[in-house]
């Protein structure tokens, strides 16, 4: 009937989305920490809050990076073969 153009994109393009999000995350976090330090009440609690937030962020970002490092980002997605991705292993009947 008709042929779809068969173009390929590498999987690492998704990393740009992640990097864009991380930029947003870092900016928002810095604003948040700035507000806490600038307007918070001086005391141990304030330092504890900033430490917990920073620690949690470090753990989550490290976990994400270790998880993402396991993948082959040079792999390409071929849209012409997209139908091959559907199979019973990936989408089993519930």
């Amino acid at each position, binding site marked *: 009937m008709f042929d779809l153009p068969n173009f390929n994109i590498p*999987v690492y393009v*998704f*990393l740009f*989305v*992640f990097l864009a*999000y991380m930029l947003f*995350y870092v900016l*928002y*976090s810095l*604003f*948040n920490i700035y*507000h*806490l*330090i*600038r*307007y*918070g*009440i*001086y005391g141990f609690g*304030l330092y504890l*809050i900033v430490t917990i*937030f920073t620690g*949690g*962020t470090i753990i*989550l*970002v490290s*976990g*994400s990076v270790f*998880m*993402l490092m396991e*993948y*082959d*980002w040079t*792999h390409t*997605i071929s849209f012409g073969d997209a139908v091959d*991705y559907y199979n019973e*292993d*990936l*989408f*089993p009947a519930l």
Partner: protein
Amino acid sequence: MMRLDRLPNQRDDERVVLFLRRHWFAILSIVTAFVLLTSIPLILGWYFWDTVDAWLKHEVLGPVIAIIGSIYFLSVWLFAFLEFTDYYLDTWIITNERIINIEQEGLFNRTASELDLASVQDATAEIRGILQTIFTYGNVFVQTGAEKARFHFKNIDNPEHVKELINALVEEDKRRLSSLGAGSRGKIKTVIK
């Protein structure tokens, strides 16, 4: 950084009597939302582990799911913390001479107001609903004579006690001012940064 022993425009002999934030129930709401938003996807992932594992091992779906998952959990953490910051920076300070109200709305709006105790005409405590009754929290409205605006202490612990304390401090401040021969200085001053 603000210090309670060095308030902005602190007057001679002024001391902090009470420092208030919203009731801990506000924190409980944030923690509950955080726990639900993190645990539900984890429980679903664990329950359907065979399927999820196959997705994660796939050369295309795996990276996409890993990125979406990372963004999701980082977002939950960030927004929980933004909500906490909003709670943490909403404060009311009652001194023996004035009431200071600092309110954070989102990350970029902040209102700081102060009110001389001598201008306070009326303080009202309000506890509404089952939760507020059980956990003894609610609102206090402070009304001044000259201004229509009211100070609103939102969802604070033990509003009855706060109301009584304000009334006692107002009486004390009025006595102090009349002994000095000074009139009411009462005005709500608002500074929006």
